[in-house]
């Protein structure tokens, strides 16, 4: 997100009570309120490889251990490896043969003998490092799977009433759905009632007596630091942890996840990525709806003295809006006005409360005078900047509060007075509530009338730098 353009001095308080910057907030069009990454639920939408952009379904990704089958990563600096070719003549009189190797363009790591011999094809069946303990790990996984299944059966036997709902996600988690399906079809190895259900035997790990001695010159040999892998490199392949840089293997690229965000109160999506494209189907960021506030002028703050502060408001939406300001009442700050909804809103489920609203603790170090009355802000017009005749009606503006206006921007005058006892070089925290007019343009099933407008209150906290 383009947060570098945002002033960190201005934060908004999300509906849940967390203080966030505007670009980090979402706007639920159904609850008509702010949401942040805490008060939305995060869901995995698709898995994809960040290098070749191949999309994989969740089962496929799980099967491939969440790694891409075709892209390799440098074991030294973890950037993507590229394939290079050269031609070599294996024997005199024979035509030269084209051979391929892997090269990291960032740190110049090169695949090398004997670990990774050069390959005659560009796709190259690059050898994948094999974990020596693969078999044992597989045994253990199978064992624990059967133990879980046994638990499921036991639970089912005890409590047949609530079958199906509570542990379905466990089934998914441990990949047991297939096993349950097998059971339903009637494969003999699983018993429906769990009696006689046997877990496969595993050999418990055994401690060995004879630990090989360290060689005599372990502590005397001069260490060649060039040959020793870094911790980072070892942790990248936890199953191997090669100590010598010669033994590093290319790593298969980790898959990434595109996630969609869902409002936890109304269960509508706030962000949903498009499948197979770097786009979004739904992208309700607060940044597209809420007027953005920026400080453009602030007189030096003096303890106990009023000084003026000019804030610029910019309306990002295609509809004109209006703002109204209110002082922040610290006593009423924690009253959460949820759930809120539009008239005739088609609910997909009954609104819920957020599981754990966070109490807002805020201390203000001064007083603020906010502009009175309603201040209109024009809609965003991308062509306005090429139009010189674009005049804005300023007749209704009170020059006491409106400094200037231009297109979808308006500069407003505020007065601030820091407390008498503020300390030197400590930021002055001030707050106010901005109500902005949100025009709802969604099509409603029940009430397909003209767009409604709702005033949305947003608590804004200013953190003004204070230097004498």
């Amino acid at each position, binding site marked *: 997100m383009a947060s570098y353009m945002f002033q960190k001095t201005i934060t908004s308080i999300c509906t849940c009570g967390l203080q966030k910057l505007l670009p980090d907030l979402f706007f639920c069009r159904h609850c008509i309120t702010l949401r942040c990454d805490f008060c939305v639920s995060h869901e995995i939408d698709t898995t994809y490889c960040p290098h070749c952009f191949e999309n994989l379904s969740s089962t496929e990704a799980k099967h491939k251990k969440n790694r891409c089958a075709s892209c390799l990563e440098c074991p*030294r*600096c973890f950037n993507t490896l590229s394939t290079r070719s050269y031609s070599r003549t294996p024997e005199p009189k024979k035509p030269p043969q084209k051979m391929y190797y892997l*090269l990291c363009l*960032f*740190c*110049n*790591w*090169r695949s*090398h003998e004997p670990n990774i011999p050069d390959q005659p094809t560009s796709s190259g069946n690059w050898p994948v490092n094999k974990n020596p303990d693969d078999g044992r790990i597989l045994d253990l996984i199978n064992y624990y799977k059967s133990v879980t299944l046994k638990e499921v059966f036991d639970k089912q036997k005890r409590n047949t009433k609530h079958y199906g709902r509570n542990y379905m996600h466990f089934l998914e988690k441990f990949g047991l759905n297939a096993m349950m399906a097998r059971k339903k079809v009637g494969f003999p190895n699983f018993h429906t009632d769990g009696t006689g259900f046997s877990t496969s035997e595993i050999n418990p790990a055994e401690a060995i007596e004879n630990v090989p001695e360290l060689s005599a010159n372990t502590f005397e040999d001069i260490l060649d*630091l*060039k*040959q020793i892998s*870094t911790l980072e490199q070892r942790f990248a392949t936890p199953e191997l942890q090669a100590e010598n*840089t*010669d033994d590093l293997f290319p790593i298969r690229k980790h898959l990434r996840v595109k996630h969609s965000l869902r409002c936890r109160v109304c269960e509508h999506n706030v962000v949903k990525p498009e499948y197979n494209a770097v786009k979004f189907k739904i992208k309700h960021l607060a940044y597209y709806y809420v007027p953005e506030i920026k400080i453009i002028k602030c007189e030096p703050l003096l303890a106990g003295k009023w000084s003026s502060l000019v804030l610029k408001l910019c309306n990002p939406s295609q509809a004109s809006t209006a703002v109204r300001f209110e002082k922040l009442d610290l006593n009423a700050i924690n009253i959460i006005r949820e759930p809120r909804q539009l008239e005739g809103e088609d609910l997909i489920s009954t609104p819920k409360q957020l599981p754990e609203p966070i109490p807002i603790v805020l201390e203000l170090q001064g007083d603020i005078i906010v502009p009175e009355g309603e201040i209109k802000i024009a809609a965003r017009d991308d062509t306005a900047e090429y139009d010189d005749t674009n005049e804005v009606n300023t007749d209704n503006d009170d020059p006491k509060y409106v400094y200037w206006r231009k297109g979808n921007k308006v500069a407003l005058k505020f007065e601030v007075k820091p407390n008498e006892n503020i300390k030197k070089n400590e930021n002055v925290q001030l707050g106010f509530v901005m109500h902005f007019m949100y025009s709802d343009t969604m099509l409603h099933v029940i009430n397909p009338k003209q767009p409604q407008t709702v005033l949305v209150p947003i608590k804004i906290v200013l953190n003004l730098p204070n230097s004498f």
Partner: protein
Amino acid sequence: MSSKVKIGQGAMVCKEIKVKGQVSFGASTIIHPGVTLIAEAGPIEIGENNIIEEYVNIIHKFLPGHEQSEPVTLKIGSNNVFEVYSTIEGVSSIGDNNIFESKSFVGRNLSIGNDCIIGAGCHLTSTSPIEDGTCVYGKNCTRQKAFCKPSVPGGHREFLTKLLPSYHLLRKNKNPIEGN
């Protein structure tokens, strides 16, 4: 700026460079425009077949306060490549076949062996010498064994020899010693 420049056989030195002090360029060395060479602490001897790209700084100066010390020659070996904006400051010696990638910095009293790669943006200020066949990479300047010898893509040198003279004025070979 007083300078004494000696250009070897087949070397190509663009005119738009800053030189201070005594600098000699070995045969077939290519110096791009915008290069700064300061030889205050003694002459700089650049070997054969080097490529020094745009805005490279090779600064051979005394430490402040030690201006009266004995001059030392800074020797740079052969077949080195100094990529755009790399800086060599007060380095003690440079061997052969090294690559200094873009925006790398090599500090004082560091000696560099042969076949080394100094990664892009690496800021080397330690004085422990860089051994032969070392690859320095990443923000922590991790030194590890290089698995391939640094090489310039084939034809790059020929390409430069063809192209540079058609767009830049060169310091003439006939006139090996240029005063101010």
